């Protein structure tokens, strides 16, 4: 654990409501390098509250990089400068004494800003409702070992299933595309034998709702993969595109 405190300037986005005009508010802080960035915000909030001022609204829950609740754009990068980490996993030892930070919400047409750093990502749930599941009723499952799945297949499916639904991919994309998020779910089930029966219907249903919810299209810049805290691979997008194309051939639809 590190010893010496560091001094930072934090410029944090404040916005009272979805309609209000936002601005950066500046805070000078001396902090422990072992603190996480969310703990720095906690600290700032404690001081604001003690002074009777409104604290900065931001969301978090697990603070371990798994729930996908947190997420800021830090100096232009969703989840900050480190690869494969969520905002809550960013510790101040990654910054130098005297650094300036700009902290903003995940911006996208599909993600309305509700207050300060809180955005509405409910579009993601709508996509999942459209087809992010295997249709099967409780109680009718065969023995778990009745379906044999090679280790590599199970691992590959888990690589895709690890998506935490944070929305960094959308915030990173100049088109606000949700292809990485959707591709991850589509791929998990496309890889596994259990997902085969609904494979082609699923991809069509999910893509349709994705388009309806103001997420943009993918132009293969791969900014999403670079910012994804789980390192979800763009190969999942390719797989989804292939399945989507196959689905059209199979079902004869051409929209």
């Amino acid at each position: 654990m590190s010893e010496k405190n560091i001094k930072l300037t934090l410029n944090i986005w404040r916005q009272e409501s979805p309609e209000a005009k936002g601005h950066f508010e500046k805070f000078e802080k001396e902090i422990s390098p072992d603190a996480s960035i969310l703990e720095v915000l906690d600290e700032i909030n404690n001081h604001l509250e003690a002074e009777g001022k409104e604290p900065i609204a931001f969301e978090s829950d697990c603070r371990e990089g798994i729930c996908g609740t947190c997420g800021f754009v830090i100096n232009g990068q969703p989840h900050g400068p480190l690869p494969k980490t969520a905002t809550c996993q960013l510790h101040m030892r990654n910054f130098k004494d005297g650094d300036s930070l700009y902290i903003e919400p995940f911006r996208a047409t599909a993600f309305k800003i509700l207050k300060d750093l809180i955005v509405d990502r409910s579009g993601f749930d709508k996509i999942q409702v459209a087809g992010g599941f295997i249709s099967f009723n409780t109680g009718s499952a065969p023995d778990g070992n009745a379906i044999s799945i090679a280790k590599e297949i199970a691992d590959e499916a888990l690589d895709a299933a690890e998506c935490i639904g944070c929305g960094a991919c959308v915030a990173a994309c100049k088109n606000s595309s949700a292809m990485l998020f959707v591709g991850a779910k589509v791929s998990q089930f496309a890889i596994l034998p259990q997902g085969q029966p609904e494979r082609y219907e699923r991809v069509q249903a999910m893509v349709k709702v994705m388009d309806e919810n103001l997420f943009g299209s993918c132009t293969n810049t791969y900014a999403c993969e670079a910012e994804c805290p789980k390192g979800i691979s763009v190969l999942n997008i390719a797989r989804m595109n292939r399945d989507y194309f196959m689905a059209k051939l199979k079902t004869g639809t051409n929209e």
Partner: protein
Amino acid sequence: MIKLDSKIPDGKLSEKWTNHKFNMKVINPANKRKFDIIVVGSGLAGASAAATLGELGYKVKIFTFHDSTRRAHSIAAQGGINAAKNYQNDADSVYRLFYDTIKGGDFRGREANTWRLAEVSNNIIDQCVAQGVPFAREYGGTLANRSFGGAQVSRTFYARGETGQQLLLGAYGSMNRQVNLGNVEIIPRREFLDVVKIDGHARGIIVRNLVTGELEKYASQAVVLATGGYVNVYFLSTNAMNSNVTAAWRVHKRGAAFANPCYTQIHPTCLPVHGEDQSKLVLMSESLRNDGRIWVPKKPGDTRGPNEIPEDERDYYLERRYPAFGNLVPRDVASRNAKYVCDEGKGIAGGKAVYLDFSDAFNRIGKDGVKDKYGNLFDMYANITGVNPYNVPMNIYPAPHYSMGGLWVDYELMSTIPGMFVLGEANFSDHGANRLGASALMQGLSDGYFIIPYTMGNYLGTEKPEKVDVETNEFKETQQNVEENINKMLSINGKQTVDSIHKRLGHLLIDKVGMSRDEQGLKEVINKIRDLREEFWTDVKIVGKANDINQTLERAGRVADFLELGELMAKDALNRNESCGAHFREEYQTEDGEALRNDEEYKYVAAWEYKKEGEWELNKEDLEFENVKLATRSYK
């Protein structure tokens, strides 16, 4: 006095659940549509319940304070989920899982519930596989297992260190399918603040819309509470930031008995506390104890680095004291022993931390082998501490993790308020005085997928509740009550922040109602908690408005409830003049420092009935053990 009727069915232990399912009322499919059910909480228990009730045809509304039902605390579970599959051919069975769980809970759980849990454990694995949960597999394609504490067989199923995430997303998917089909409606960003009772039965809820601040009323014919555990009462814990007791507590104040509040689990393998501004503690999965060896320097206050301390100057205290189970003793035993060695000054550099060392595993299966099994946990450790655990042994220390106590429920998971069911960590039911690893996920999913779908039918079929309107007086009065409470908090306008009071409560509790307790300390702490509660209600400062996103107000409401719960925890611990599982009273221990139960006098569930602030009546549910012999737990 509440009448506690546990409704445990007659008959042989192994036939109770089957018989009960046969004897319960069944509602025909066409009629299920006529019943509205509210589920609060979308963790494993709530999501699996909503999905299955929806599949059966009930009309379900599910609420969560998160922005999405995919983000409950359950998502953070790392290690795995138990089942009695015996895939490893190591003589596992429903009986063994049942026995391990009852023994692990130090004979303070209900036999019938625990048996049922073990019985349905296998269905859970099948269910999750069918949903597409990518559990770890062997090269041959079969499901893989690992070992967890308190068991000598390998029965834990896992998906890397992300088991909770994968199970929750499975349940979330099944629930989404029901949303798609029109049976389930998800209502996120709502905080449950009270239950509405009509003629004594739970018939609706009051929630606060966390975006607009408005209070909203929802009616139903039954309510299911799956709102998780309460160890955030300690301020620092491994639980997610938003986990809290409010839902359970408000229901308790409306008449639901609260059982065994002093049974809180302090998990042995967590990252040590590093500073005052820390917001939470991080768990390093218990699965690490499969291959990691726990030790401290033999010499108190030894300041040498771990790699400079030779083998013969290390104390592998768990292996030494418990040769049969070694590093895999149950959590309460492992935690208490960590505390002992640190109290003796043998912690790392004399402080509050011990080593979790993988050197042997590196030699046996190589760094790559270790990486394959625990890679993400090692990465997490490095990320948080800035130290590479492949080179230097991990530092760990116990932290509050799980609440075995919770709302009292009968065999059908119904609380003492008829029509109010409680599932998952929020109830007290299956783990006695200590929970074994990998069994909370099992319980949450068992409650949600395999128990409530049947017992709900029995309640609705028996009571045949009518639909009610939210414009009735009961709804209006309850809502008004909630509103007054909010306004009262906002009007205090004192000097102390919500967090600062919560931290002080946490310090009091971890010190006096943590890993070890004694009469004097408990008496003292009750008074201190009362004083602190007084301070809260006269001097807390909550900025912002009621009709806006106001996270300080949300936290204030939760801390107000924690301040009442904390007192009850201490009261319960004081009442229980014995040591059992996680509840360790200094006065009651064997010669070699193990927990000393008093079965004569304390073989009961303590179900507390709320009278008024700071006043409770104790109701006892005697525990009968017909199938296991009460024994002193031994892991030697």
